[in-house]
């Protein structure tokens, strides 16, 4: 378990943050990442501890974006030893896409333990 990702960092916009916080009120923290005094670009990074509940929240949030047909997720996983791994993947959706379909895409896209699909799907039901 030592090399399992502990924290997830998602590149989001301010509307995403509000929607994620509705689904995960305790879990989502927004960070700004620049030295004091510096001028920076308008980007937001949402940080959350990587748990099945968070994966479920992200799945439900992605399902809300259904009309976009596809959503590209840019994220980073951070590990206990300080390592970080970038992941970028596109979730494809249609009117018939189920919650489990999205969970599978998220778990695969984030390169997480495939066993999480069952755990998260059970949460969803």
């Amino acid at each position, binding site marked *: 378990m030592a090399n399992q990702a502990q924290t997830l960092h998602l590149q989001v916009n301010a509307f995403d943050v509000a929607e994620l916080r509705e689904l995960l009120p305790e879990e989502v923290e927004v960070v700004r990442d620049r030295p004091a005094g510096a*001028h920076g670009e308008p980007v937001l990074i949402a940080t959350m501890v990587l748990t099945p509940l968070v994966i479920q929240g992200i799945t439900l949030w992605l399902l809300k974006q259904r009309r976009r047909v596809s959503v590209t997720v840019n994220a980073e996983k951070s590990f206990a030893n300080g390592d970080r791994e970038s992941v970028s993947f596109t979730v494809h959706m249609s009117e018939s896409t189920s919650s489990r379909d999205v969970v599978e895409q998220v778990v695969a896209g984030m390169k997480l333990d495939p066993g999480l699909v069952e755990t998260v799907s059970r949460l969803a039901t």
Partner: protein
Amino acid sequence: MALGQSWTDPFSNHTHLTNVDVTAHLEELVGVGTTPRHLLLPLLHEAAHHWCFLSPVGNTVALLNMRVRRRALQVVDDQEAPKTPLLLDLVSSRVVTELLRPLAEGIALAMEFDAVSRKTNFVSYPFVAAVRAFAPGSAEVDIVLFSAHLNEALTAARIAPQGVDRRLNVYADRMDEGGTGYLLGYLATRSMMYSLWRVLGRLVEEGDLCVGYLRAYFYQDWELVDLLLDRTRDEIEHANAIRQHIAERTWGIRDVTASQIEAFEDLASTDADMRDPRYVRALGLDPDRARRGQDRLETLGLELSQALDVSTKHEDLADFLFVLESETAAARRTVFLGSADVVVSVKGGFADVSTRDRVLLSDLTTGASDAVGPGELEIFFESEHSDRPRLLHVTNSQGLVAFVSAQHDANDPDPDDAPALPRSALRQIGAVFDEIVEHAVSTSWVSIGLAHFMEATPSVCQGIYRDVALRYVPTDQMDDVAAVLGAGGIRALLGNNRDLAEALAIAGAVIPTRPLRPLLDAEIRRWGLEHDLVDELAKVGERGFSVLDAKDDWLLGRA
């Protein structure tokens, strides 16, 4: 793709771009028109900051910051050293930086969100840099001609999901003191752009020129330079004078004439000296105060060219500081694209640069001694010659290994211009002196005086920029609009309707190059949104603040 926020430091003018993987994309980063597209908006934003800080006002702030470090070292060296000069320099550099912060963000946002270039001969430094990096085939051809390629690349980047996200983040910012200053600065800048459109209509489709004039109006302001270096007032009068001057300039934008903008366009298109009296007239400055500002800046430069006088106990630090100042002054004129930790192998006057699994550069001519070990590879370009090939700077533990052009058939830069230190070392040494400044401040009464000013800056910024941002709001709707934008930004003005906000972001992306309703409708439908959202956006103006003007099929973006 690594996550993070790109940034620019106003004093060192160092730009940091996230998502730059030098080892994986070296060829693309230095090539013509081959830079990865996801870097276009971040590069334009940071290059715009860099451009603002590389200006008479930006240079003055940087030199004042250098003198602050000197004075702090003198205070640490001798507790009896006078502290008022330190406080006045701190007030000058920090107060003006904070009071101009919303404007700096507004200018950078307007560059990345709205600027395009059509027929003008003026092309800003950030645009020139972006043309070379993102417009294919532009190396040997007229840069103005290739602005058209950049306009298309910009529209594509702005309309991509990440481009829309960046705009949505600004729309969701509060405009009051609880906000980050992005929305306050952006709306103030857009309002001033609108003022300029009213006197010279073609600026509507010459965003680069319009933003360029605003940048010059505030950052080539020799009167402000004069004021920052004036030491005839106490710290309170001094801070108030800075505030009043910036406020008057923001209001004075309404008095700018078409002939002044056109004079600026001619001068800036030919790279005229920024001290040219014709610039002074074009920017609406008082000639005598401007001349005095130029003289005062020159005097400050001369003062800092002299070594610092401290006791023998702190001589080494003073020597370090002198080197740091000279290196920082040179680095301020280059835009840093990225760096990588590498292995540098030097043998017989040639160097190879590699990572664990690939050779990045080989057979670089070097005067370094034979060695194999860790080093650093940096890429940057000269701000004032951003159409020229990118520069590669290689160092190892012994110092400089190579300083070469990234383009094989181009002349290498003058070795005497090579930075002695990599940027990472420069920043580390700079941080040491910043700690000395904080120590000198925190252990004297200076901290009380400075804290007073810094605590006041958010409300002072409100006083300066809020009224400018709301200049075109009807008086009877002013309070309502201010309350809505203050507490919830454009998002609240749009009823917290995400679809409407996305439609506005798409409109903002499309209109600078295609200001026609049918084209915008098509783009909005492509996003899966309803095209009648455009009608809703046009109606927002009935609430007192227009985000989109529509007349028949013609559209004008306002936010």
